[in-house]
């Protein structure tokens, strides 16, 4: 490989020139020369040595690189409240009507058309825009008040209702996207179009890792869910950040990470030595290329090696007492289910993994919502509540932030024909409910209000970017000062928006 490399070198090639060409791209060349010449001209114009130093500095320094380091070195901007995050992403858009946003007045309006004064001409999806009437449908499920906070919770969530005094429910979330993929991408990366780093990647980039033996961003996708809407690996992708910050997805099943066991007949004794030599070869090769991807690959080889010992330990639930499985529910004994993933998440958090994200699909109930919601809640309710309880009793809720929510909410009107016991709901990004719990947020608290139709926000709206800003704030990062330069412009998780929701901070 190396030979063919050398044979193709053009005449006049020298290692120095080659290096220079690789490190000086067009943009950097132009910036440097323009700035350099400009300041030299200015310096000679003034005829003094006042600027002498800075000229040579400009000419030799790689300004953009040092700025990047400066930004990283300013983190944390404030004392963090949360050390880790577990984000339970309910993919598909869970209905707020059958979960947390109690709207008793709708009971008297069953089947009546949604008043125009409420809809105000807002866009609908193509799926229900052609409907002759938009019949209002109340939740078929009953609500009760729970906890010291007297919070209304649907009967579908009996376990969550038990921990409601730990939750900070935001009923006034809103998003800009009305379809699944852009909406999830927006939530996870701050932009509706693919290509930006996800929240976990930003956090891994900004804060590094607290456990050298495990990735700082781990993703678990439930196997026991209706895969009605797809999930893509780019949702936990690193975008333009270095590859080692991408979320590492564990497989839903018995072996969350494959090929950790040594092959037959090999005891792994000289593994470390082998990897060391490989690293040397890679480093040697990369001296000419300076490709950050090679550096990321070196880091990942080493991480994989450390994971050979760390993963079996953290993944094994053999030592978990029966009481734990009883707490998380019957599914928890079946690896890859949502409940089993919740136990896994707790174990990863115990090991100080910084960002654990669970995905549970199947919340997209355009039709047969009553049955669908009942199934979804049954599959997730007990384990979700168990995770809160388990983290709490272990003292981990003290510095762990738990987040539960989907990408948007659902409409007050039924999509398709309305039956007394069956209906569907379309996408509704104008308001929906999600909750946080644990480090830094108020417990037993509800934030924001919607109108009687849960169609418009009437108090304390929270935009997706506000949520992201608050999340970073809780991790000790000021979202406006946390940028990364890519293709000539600076990027932020929150784009040019977002404000910290102070009302929910404890």
């Amino acid at each position, binding site marked *: 490989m190396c030979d063919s490399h050398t044979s193709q070198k053009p005449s006049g090639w020298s290692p120095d020139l080659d290096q220079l060409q690789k490190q000086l791209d067009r943009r950097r060349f132009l910036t440097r020369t323009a700035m350099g010449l400009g300041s030299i001209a200015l310096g000679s114009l003034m005829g003094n040595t006042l600027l002498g130093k800075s000229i040579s500095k400009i000419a030799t320094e790689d300004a953009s690189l040092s700025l990047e380091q400066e930004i990283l070195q300013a983190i*944390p901007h404030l004392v963090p409240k949360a050390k880790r995050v577990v984000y339970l992403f309910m993919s598909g858009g869970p209905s707020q009507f059958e979960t947390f946003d109690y709207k008793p007045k709708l009971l008297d309006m069953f089947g009546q058309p949604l008043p125009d004064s409420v809809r105000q001409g807002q866009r609908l999806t193509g799926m229900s825009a052609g409907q002759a009437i938009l019949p209002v449908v109340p939740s078929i499920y009953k609500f009760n008040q729970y906890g010291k906070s007297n919070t209304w919770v649907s009967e579908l969530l009996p376990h969550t209702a038990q921990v409601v005094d730990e939750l900070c429910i935001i009923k006034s979330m809103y998003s800009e996207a009305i379809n699944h993929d852009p909406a999830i991408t927006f939530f996870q990366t701050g932009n509706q179009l693919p290509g930006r780093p996800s929240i976990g990647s930003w956090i891994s980039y900004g804060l590094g890792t607290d456990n050298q033996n495990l990735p700082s961003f781990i993703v678990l996708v439930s196997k026991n869910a209706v895969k009605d809407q797809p999930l893509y690996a780019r949702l936990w992708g690193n975008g333009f950040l270095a590859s080692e910050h991408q979320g590492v997805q564990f497989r839903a099943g018995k072996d969350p990470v494959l090929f950790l066991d040594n092959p037959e007949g090999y005891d792994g004794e000289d593994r470390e030595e082998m990897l060391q030599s490989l690293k040397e070869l890679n480093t040697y090769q990369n001296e000419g290329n300076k490709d950050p991807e090679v550096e990321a690959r070196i880091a990942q080889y080493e991480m994989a090696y450390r994971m050979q010992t760390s993963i079996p330990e953290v993944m094994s639930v053999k030592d978990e007492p029966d009481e734990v499985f009883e707490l998380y529910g019957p599914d928890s004994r079946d690896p890859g289910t949502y409940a089993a993933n919740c136990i896994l998440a707790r174990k990863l958090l115990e090991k100080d993994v910084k960002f654990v994200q669970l995905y549970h699909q199947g919340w997209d109930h355009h039709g047969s919502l009553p049955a669908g919601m009942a199934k979804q809640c049954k599959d997730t309710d007990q384990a979700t509540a168990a995770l809160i309880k388990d983290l709490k009793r272990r003292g981990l809720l003290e510095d762990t932030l738990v987040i539960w929510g989907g990408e948007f909410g659902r409409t007050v009107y039924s999509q398709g024909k309305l039956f007394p016991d069956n209906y569907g709901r379309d996408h509704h990004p104008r308001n929906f409910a999600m909750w946080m719990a644990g480090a830094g947020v108020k417990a037993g608290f509800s934030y924001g209000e919607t109108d009687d139709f849960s169609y418009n926000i009437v108090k304390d709206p929270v935009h997706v970017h506000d949520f992201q800003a608050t999340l970073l704030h809780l991790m000790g990062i000021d979202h406006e000062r946390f940028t990364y330069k890519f293709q000539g412009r600076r990027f932020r998780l929150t784009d040019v928006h977002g404000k910290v929701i102070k009302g929910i901070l404890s």
Partner: protein
Amino acid sequence: MILLEISQFLGRLHPLIVHLPIGILFVILLFELLGYKSRYSYLREGIPLLSWLLFASTLFAGIFGYILSLDGDYPGPLVSQHQWAGIILCILALGMALLQSDWLQQKRRLPVFVQTSLWVVIALLTTYAGHQGGSLTHGEDYLSLEVLREQQRPKPDSIEAALLYEDVIQPLLIRRCGQCHNEGKKKGQLSVTNLAKLLKGGKTGPALVPGDPEKSELIHRIKLDPSDEKFMPTDGKTPLTAEETTLLTWWVKEAGAAEGKSLASLEVAPEIRSIIAKQLGMEASNGIAATKETMEQLNIPAGLVEKADSTAIQQLKAAGFMVRLLLREPELLDITLPEGTKVDWKALEPSLGSLSKHTIWLNLGGNNLTENELQVLPQFTNLEKLRLHNNPLGDEILPKLEPLQRLEAINLVGTRITEAGLAKLKSAGTIKRVYYWEPSVK
């Protein structure tokens, strides 16, 4: 009335029109010089036409300039100098145009180099007139080498260290009013460049009356209705923001419009402080300022040196500890000993001790620790969160926790603390959250 407005409008076009003769003149010079090369000698043929154009544009620029001088608020001597330079240029341009005309060329032909030097003289005169014009528009000190050598006051490190007038008010006034009211331009004979000039004031009297914003002309003018003729800044320039107006009024009223006062010596209301912080560029987003003032509000232990001992941090890391920064100024630390890490506690005691005041979170869970290893614990008096879970620790550890007066949360899950010990812990001190639970073991 309309006629007057038209003339005013035309007058204001002067700074635009003057660039026409300048451009034409440079083309003439270029053609003239290139004409020495035989290859380009044909260019000279264009010069007579260009000369006439030069004359015409100079004439127009002059007329517009005269109109502008009628209504403009410009210092007299400079205006008349500029005016005469313009008139001479106009005459010279006419002369040159005539010189190039066929009629005169036939009679008497000037040597080429004389013609060239005449153009150069005109160019020099144009430069002079142009510079004067610039000085009239932007002030005499606008384009001078002094600007380059001017010493900038270094940016203060904190709000407390800032001087109110020098660091905040003066830059604000110069930024917002200095374009017209500077040493060079002095519209209304007012200059805002220093405090003495402000107190002296301009045409309508002192701009500032210390302690009395009502009588201070400057404050009065910026607070008028923007449609008022006397409103400042005039001519549709961006008005001062409400915050800037508030700050200036406060400065005149409460701080006596004085210079040399540090902010530490003044009583500053929070809303004024936040305006000042913004002016100084010290405010971070959403009011989460990284300034020392807010740190106090964030309950940061007092009397800490900025930096934690870095060699001690290195030693701890080498021994297997995770040391994480929670804040940079002052440095606050989160120290974790990963589960099952064997460390030589005796040897590390000095390092732990030297970092004890900087550490606000400490996690020693799952390391088989007894009271013996934790001799250094009482030194961690700034701790807010302590995790001792899954260690064989009993009630004997409790006295070691007594000095930790800032402790808010303690994790004793899986230890041998007794009920009585827990009750004692909860009743004493500031601890708000005690986590205790006996995990069942399989």
